[in-house]
């Protein structure tokens, strides 16, 4: 952190550069903040364009979508695009939504609990060999995630996991990175709580279950939210394991729109809306936790 000391030293202006008069500086900051807002509004609008296009198209008819005459809004709101999604026997969209929901709802809490358990033990229960266990867990982080997909497929395939729910879920339950995050969280946990619990006759597991877990809720919410997002948006793994349409996830069902003979465009966009809606709502409602989770996991790496 030498730069802490260096930075002020570089700040003095070189000799000969005169300090701007006060009034113009004030005007400068005012102009600056107007420009900042202008730039931000413009960029935010650009960022939201894809959402707008998606919604617009999802509520239009095919001729409206493909028309070369630009239309800002659909002539009438065609909600039937959404209901049409669910009665195509070739593409079990409802089933795939259900599959994605089950996968995410199981993965988020279970994966977070496993990571919290291991993180707590590694931080707070001193046993011989603890460093070895930590090294074994951290060691898996050295290998890039997407590269493990084929090895994992070999193992899950040999255990008969293709086209099964457990095959889709199981490999995603073990997040070594979350263990590291939980461990550093528990390392800075006040020791008094555990001591009080021990004095009250709680076992180690009792302390964890009754005192530690209830006091880790923000951490669990943040990492659980990220885990839910990953599970919902994951593509490569369900693509390999869910080969039968009945074990498709919503992402696979969505991509199947592009392989079908005739593409019903409004329905494709309606399907995209349905696929992203749960997470968009989650981002709007639980943004605090998500932001915290992102900041935590990003900066620890």
């Amino acid at each position, binding site marked *: 952190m030498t730069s802490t000391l260096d930075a002020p030293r570089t700040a003095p202006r070189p000799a000969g550069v005169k300090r701007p008069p006060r009034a113009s500086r004030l005007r400068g900051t005012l102009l600056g903040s107007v420009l900042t807002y202008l730039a931000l509004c413009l960029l935010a609008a650009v960022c939201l364009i*894809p959402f707008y296009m998606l919604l617009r198209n999802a509520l239009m008819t095919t001729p409206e979508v493909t028309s070369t005459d630009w239309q800002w809004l659909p002539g009438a709101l065609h909600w039937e695009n959404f209901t049409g999604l669910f009665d195509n026997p070739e593409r079990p969209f409802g089933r795939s939504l259900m599959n994605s929901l089950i996968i995410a709802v199981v993965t988020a809490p279970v994966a977070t609990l496993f990571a919290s358990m291991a993180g707590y033990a590694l931080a707070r229960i001193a046993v011989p060999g603890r460093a070895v266990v930590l090294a074994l867990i951290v060691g898996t982080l050295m290998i890039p995630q997407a590269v493990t997909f084929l090895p994992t497929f*070999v193992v899950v395939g040999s255990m008969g996991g293709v086209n099964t729910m457990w095959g889709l879920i199981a490999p995603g339950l073990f997040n070594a990175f979350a263990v590291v995050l939980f461990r550093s969280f528990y390392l800075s946990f006040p020791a008094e709580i555990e001591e009080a619990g021990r004095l009250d006759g709680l076992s180690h597991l009792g302390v964890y279950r009754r005192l530690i877990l209830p006091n880790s809720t923000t951490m669990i919410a943040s990492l659980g939210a990220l885990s839910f*997002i990953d599970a919902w948006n994951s593509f490569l793994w369900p693509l390999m394991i869910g080969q039968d349409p009945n074990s498709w996830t919503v992402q696979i069902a969505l991509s199947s729109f592009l392989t079908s003979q005739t593409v019903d465009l409004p329905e494709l966009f309606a399907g995209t809306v349905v696929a*992203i809606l749960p997470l*968009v709502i989650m981002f709007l409602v639980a943004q605090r936790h998500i932001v915290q989770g992102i900041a935590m996991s990003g900066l620890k790496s």
Partner: protein
Amino acid sequence: MTATDTPPLHTDAVPPAPAAAPRRRRLSERRAKILAFAVLTAPMLIGLGIFRYVAIGWSFLLSFSEARRTIALGDWVGLDNYQQLLSDERFRGSLTMIVLFTALIVPLTFAASLGLAVLVNRVRRGRAFFRTAFLLPAAVSYVAAAMIWKMSLFSGVPSGLANTLGALFGADPTPWIQTQSPPLYWIVLVTLRLWLQVGLYMILFIAGLQSIPRHLYEAAELDGAGPWRTFRSITFPMLRNTSVAILLLMLIAALQAFDEFYTIFSTGASLGSEPVRTPLMHLYGVALQDQDYGVGSAGAFLLTLLIVLVTLLQGRILGFARDKD
């Protein structure tokens, strides 16, 4: 995180039995500790053991064996699988492709997310709104974004958004995704990933910005430093650790690109004939279509090697920079 919401301790717990021999008590206490440790770490260790250690070990052995339509070991072929892949022009092409893509998307995303973070961090009012607006794309999956990009924004038909805008300036409709020379599809790929990721990294940069002590800025202001000078002399150096971490995340993510490439280029085309493929797409084809797990495994390790090399290179370059100051 306070202890105030702790549930009341159960008062009916059995008090610890008075130990006859303290030595034995210490022993059983030790055993209890080990047991608790084992119970708490068992799920993670078993899971990682099966899905990481066994999987990667098995795959490593497969990469040295002839394994078509089988995952049984035994038919050892040495380095043949590696040789076959490296002499495969399409695999080599995919490696070149992904390195180019990474070299393009990483600096762009870095600059854009840092710029957004500085802008958002500067405003007082409406900060939450802007943060939400830029973060919202991160909720969208690559597949969903690929749908919007391929079928609406950059669709080749005249009604696509890019072509509609182009028509305002008298341009003819362009098949953005199909055009290989000049490679217009790069615009599609880069804007998609930029849109999807910029908010995530912006959050990380904002967290980094907020950890810079305020007094540095006050000192700079007293010295009359302008915004650009302040950014260069204070903000950027102080963000060093954040930047290194973010760069690493971006590199690893870009080198493993799959979802949007596959969705845009592979669906519809028969596999193996898509014009643009990433290494991961190639491996997916080898493993799932040809069911050649030996060559597929070899590819997984070659890709790992590439990622490790790039991250080491990044570490070296930035490590040298650190030595200087």
